[in-house]
């Protein structure tokens, strides 16, 4: 298997979609004038008769994807996350989720990964929005390997999926060839003192934080919860049982996203302290690179380290 860990997440996805298009001729790709950004254009070049550009009209693209799904095809609708999760939300709610059509939404440039364009183009509420919709499955790959490996799994899963992709490369956390399953999180690092439940770009950052914490004698575990919905309750409960303190980490607002999903599981099944890492109810800013924006808005490695110490402190109260 080729090593794709250094590829931008969107490129890993775009290449994987094109590869899968050869395997499954029912797959079609739709875009909203962003194919050179989402990189659905890899698919477009190989399968021009199965690629459709709807222009800057995300709601129309989603409804058209619904039409394709009604006729048994497997549409991947590609757009910027900020637009598809907001401007096309009513289409997604009514025609994709309520009507339970087999539409796959590839939401690119998620989180603050479109650092250059600023808060208008950041998607920091999309996990919360999509997670609240009945019938929707929400997948946030941690790295380029997952961005590629999930493509066939999502295509072969019967039902709506929101697939949240970063623009650039995120720290690689997967072992090439490792098996993935929708709804089943991965233990990236076992720990005894505290568990960091992370998704997307924050999985790699959490592993780095865990490395720093080990120098202080704190043994932090890291869960890769690539499927935010349905959340892997068993894995969260078993980690909480082992460490007694949790931290959630996501490139998203702390309201309604992964942190909330983890809090719901803990609150109802195994209450332990939880400290959430993410954007604290504010809009971020334009920055020189994604890392700078993440560090400035509560998603730095130092923020995770601090949250772990806080969670452990709460455990001792």
């Amino acid at each position, binding site marked *: 298997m080729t090593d794709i860990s250094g590829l931008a997440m969107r490129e890993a996805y775009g290449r994987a979609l094109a590869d899968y298009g050869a395997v499954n001729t029912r797959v*079609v790709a739709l875009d909203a004038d962003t194919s050179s950004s989402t990189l659905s254009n890899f698919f477009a070049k190989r399968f021009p*008769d*199965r690629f*459709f550009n*709807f*222009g800057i*009209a995300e*709601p*129309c693209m989603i*409804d*058209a*994807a*619904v*039409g*394709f*799904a*009604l*006729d*048994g*095809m497997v*549409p991947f609708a590609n757009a910027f996350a900020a637009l598809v999760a907001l401007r096309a939300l*009513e*289409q997604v709610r*009514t*025609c994709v989720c*309520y*009507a*339970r059509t087999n539409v796959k939404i590839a939401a690119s440039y998620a989180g603050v990964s479109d650092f250059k364009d600023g808060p208008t183009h950041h998607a920091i509420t999309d996990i919360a929005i999509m997670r609240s919709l009945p019938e929707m499955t929400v997948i946030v790959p941690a790295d380029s390997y997952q961005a590629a490996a999930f493509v066939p799994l999502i295509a072969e899963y019967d039902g709506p999926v929101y697939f949240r992709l970063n623009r650039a490369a995120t720290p690689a956390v997967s072992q090439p060839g490792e098996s993935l399953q929708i709804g089943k999180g991965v233990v990236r690092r076992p720990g005894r003192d505290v568990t960091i439940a992370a998704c997307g770009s924050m999985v790699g950052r959490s592993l780095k934080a865990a490395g720093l914490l080990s120098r202080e004698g704190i043994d932090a575990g890291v869960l890769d919860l690539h499927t935010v919905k349905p959340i892997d309750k068993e894995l969260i409960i078993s980690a909480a049982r082992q460490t007694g303190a949790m931290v959630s980490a996501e490139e998203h607002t702390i309201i309604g996203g992964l942190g909330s999903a983890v809090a719901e599981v803990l609150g109802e099944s195994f209450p332990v302290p939880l400290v959430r890492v993410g954007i604290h109810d504010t809009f971020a800013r334009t920055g020189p690179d994604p890392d700078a924006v993440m560090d400035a808005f509560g998603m730095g490695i130092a923020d995770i380290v601090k949250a772990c110490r806080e969670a452990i402190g709460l455990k001792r109260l």
Partner: protein
Amino acid sequence: MKKYDDSGIAELNKTANYLRKQSLTMIYQRQAGHPGGCLSAADIMAVLYFHVLRIDPQRPGWEGRDRFILSKGHASALLYSALAKRGFFPVSDLDHWGELNCHLQGHPDRLKTAGVDMTSGILGHGIAIACGLAMAARLQRQGFRTYTLLGDGECQGGIVWEGVNACAKYNLGNVTAIVDYNDVQLDGAVHDIMPMEPFADKWRSFRWNVISIDGHDVRQILEALQQAETVASQPTVIIARTIKGKGVSFMENKAHWHGVPPNKQEYEAAMAELEREK
């Protein structure tokens, strides 16, 4: 399309009258629903469901069937009346519309009701979904046609025109849209709330084949749908001028009757009028 003659037209007029009475009865019994837009679209639906659409009530999921999307989903009572009469489910189900365990939802639901090709209710989706369906049909070399029925007020929403644009880009001759142009919406007259004229010109400028008809003249509806089938390079819109509340004199052209059910006295008066028309 199948051939038709004078007796066929007379039969379709009778069916339209039946659909009006059945819809009104459903709305009266449930004390909820949208009488005005059911009555205005009854002739169009009679022609579609009892002459034009290639459908099989025994096989609601038949891949080769023509598709119909009721974009103006609030005319659900009309759609349910037509589906029941065609045999997709027992007519007696109509008495249970809106009950918690009945498959008939307030607005059409493709997962619950046999014969409903697409869930609808929030206005505006029909054309853009029809666009995707028609593209999929072409890609998979399927011969079915996709029809969608819109309201005129619905066309005030931007998503309609996104879909209109996309259907034209892809030259979807297998899409036929019908607009139930009754000029009345919830809050008043369409021409007051947000005028749509010049309406036909709008569609023409979006590169659609436009046919304007009297939406209560069954022969004109049949001819328009037949003509639409002959235009392969463009989608067709049939702009059907109609009367909201058609057939019940005190409901005609009145915004009040968009979404208000009749009381007993009104219902009986309305049914008496519709009986006479038959």
